[in-house]
């Protein structure tokens, strides 16, 4: 089997094949729910759609399919890898939404519809080749997720979170659009390669500076980079845990994809023609990265709510990935993408555990987790793995990806540069942060495995949660000891992006 199936089925829409499936499914969701009144059926359809879409995508990826749709959507290795990531996130979320006690019951069809729509938006961004499509994709994600956050049953915290989310989201949308308009003004086009070409003949200008900063702010909101991160802890805490997971692992990555698409392409093109210094911008990203990871980790120490703690840790992880934007090398990009993948499983897994426990009536406080090892050994063990992976303890996925990522601050990926000294300080800050993060991860570990709980009554976690957590466990270990499973694709993707 190869991608000819896809091309024969979809013709000129082949680059959009994974999205089309999900879009149709998204539109079908409410209908399925009203027709059957069975939430299982809805989830089944959603999961099936995602699986089908994933199947097509994997075919296309393995086959090295490349193609574009009217020049605004381009499917290449990069798009393939990122789409796969978003599909995984969607799959996990769809699975656990079924049995989570937090997700809405009344509008279950709409919930799934929004979920799939948001996923489609993410995929749009991954394939986008034009500012317009990036913008539209990001907005599709944003607007859907505003609604997803609000769709938690009778929880005033969710309502509050949604208000905050929509306001800060709207603000950043405005900022983004303003930045895009400036970029358009400077270059006269919205097509990314053309922008790069146009910029390579220009000097730095005020307008471009404004564009730069406002776009960083706009997408920085999505990835929750300091100082645009303030919404994240509140929203993650307030939203239903599957949605928190969706936001933390999926929505965050959209911001990165947009940043990669816009900035790396622009700057790589610009730096090759040497009319335009990129170093200053790299430093801006480096500063943001350093502050983001430090703030995220340090503040996470003082959190008692585990979802909030995971939110801050998520901010810190964003800081790590921002190293890619500072270093802007092909190897860094590949490492960053790989870290995004492992992050899905580690952070996603951790959120899943939290969600599973909430579903069986255990609170969100770290102290509620006391004695968990006795009550739910598998869950506790899985959580241990996820947290240690997040902290970067070998031989788990988080370690390997951090190793790649941090090393990218020093190593250019065998392109002849040897050891780079410019970003060593960033690597130092990153490793120190990695150590700080142990502080709060071990708090949870201590509560779960070491402290004694009030009861030793066994807990029965819903099956879909167990399945999703198992998937995460498998990949957290597998990607730790066999990273090339994904890393090879990431390397291809990075070279595809740099090749533009």
């Amino acid at each position, binding site marked *: 089997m190869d991608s000819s199936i896809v091309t024969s089925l979809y013709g000129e829409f082949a680059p959009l094949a994974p999205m089309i499936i999900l879009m149709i499914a998204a539109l079908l969701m409410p209908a399925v729910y009203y027709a059957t009144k069975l939430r299982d059926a809805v989830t089944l359809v959603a999961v099936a759609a995602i699986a089908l879409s994933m199947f097509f995508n994997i075919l296309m990826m393995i086959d090295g399919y490349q193609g574009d749709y009217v020049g605004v959507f381009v499917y290449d290795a990069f798009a393939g890898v990122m789409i796969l990531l978003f599909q995984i996130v969607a799959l996990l979320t769809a699975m656990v939404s079924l049995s989570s006690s937090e997700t809405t019951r009344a509008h279950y069809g709409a919930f799934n519809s929004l979920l799939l729509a948001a996923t489609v938006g993410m995929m749009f961004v991954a394939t986008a080749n034009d500012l317009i499509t990036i913008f539209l994709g990001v907005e599709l994600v944003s607007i859907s997720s*505003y609604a997803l956050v609000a769709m938690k049953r009778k929880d005033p915290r969710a309502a509050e979170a949604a208000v905050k989310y929509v306001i800060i989201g709207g603000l950043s949308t405005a900022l983004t659009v303003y930045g895009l308009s400036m970029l358009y003004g400077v270059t006269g086009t919205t097509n990314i390669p053309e922008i790069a070409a146009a910029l390579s003949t220009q000097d730095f200008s005020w307008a471009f500076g404004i564009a730069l900063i406002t776009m960083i702010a706009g997408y920085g909101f999505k990835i929750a980079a300091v100082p645009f991160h303030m919404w994240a802890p509140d929203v993650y805490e307030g939203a239903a845990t599957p949605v928190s997971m969706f936001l933390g692992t999926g929505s965050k990555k959209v911001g990165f994809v947009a940043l990669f698409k816009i900035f790396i392409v622009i700057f790589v093109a610009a730096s090759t023609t040497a009319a335009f210094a990129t170093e200053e911008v790299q430093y801006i990203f480096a500063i943001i990265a350093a502050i983001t990871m430090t703030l995220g980790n340090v503040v996470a120490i003082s959190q008692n709510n585990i979802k909030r703690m995971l939110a801050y840790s998520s901010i810190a992880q964003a800081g790590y990935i921002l190293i890619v934007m500072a270093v802007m090398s092909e190897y860094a990009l590949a490492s960053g993408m790989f870290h995004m993948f492992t992050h899905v499983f580690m952070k996603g897994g951790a959120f899943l555990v939290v969600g599973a426990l909430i579903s069986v009536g255990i609170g969100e406080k770290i102290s509620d987790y006391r004695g968990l090892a006795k009550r739910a050994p598998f869950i506790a063990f899985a959580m241990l793995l996820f947290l240690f992976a997040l902290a970067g303890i070998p031989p788990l996925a988080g370690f390997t990806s951090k190793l790649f990522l941090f090393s990218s601050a020093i190593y250019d990926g065998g392109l002849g540069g040897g050891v780079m000294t410019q970003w060593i300080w960033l690597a130092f800050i990153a490793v120190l942060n990695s150590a700080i993060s142990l502080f709060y991860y071990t708090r949870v570990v201590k509560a779960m495995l070491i402290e004694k709980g009030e009861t030793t009554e066994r807990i029965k976690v819903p099956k879909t949660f167990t399945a999703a957590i198992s998937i995460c466990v498998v990949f957290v270990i597998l990607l730790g000891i066999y990273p090339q499973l994904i890393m090879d694709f990431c390397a291809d993707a990075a070279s595809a992006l740099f090749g533009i």
Partner: protein
Amino acid sequence: MIPIEVYLVFAAVLFAIGAYGVMVKSNTIVVLMCIELMLNAANINFIVFSAFTTDVLGQVFVIMTISVAAAEVAVGIAILLNAYKLKNTTEADSLTSMRW
């Protein structure tokens, strides 16, 4: 002909007013309106650039932005209603149960 800078400064001022509103207004409905203001500032930019470069893409972008803004406001108002229903307020200053 009016120079392009005038339009841009106008848009920038509009944008700044919107941003100021978001920062100081406690009423979330007003905040949403301020955001609209900011979006429209960006739209003006697009139109102006489009007009000055005789490129049609900018106008396309504006149409997209307007529709996105509409969707956003729709969702936003729905969320505010939901919040009002659950918390009896939509004042930003009162919606501070989650912090630190």
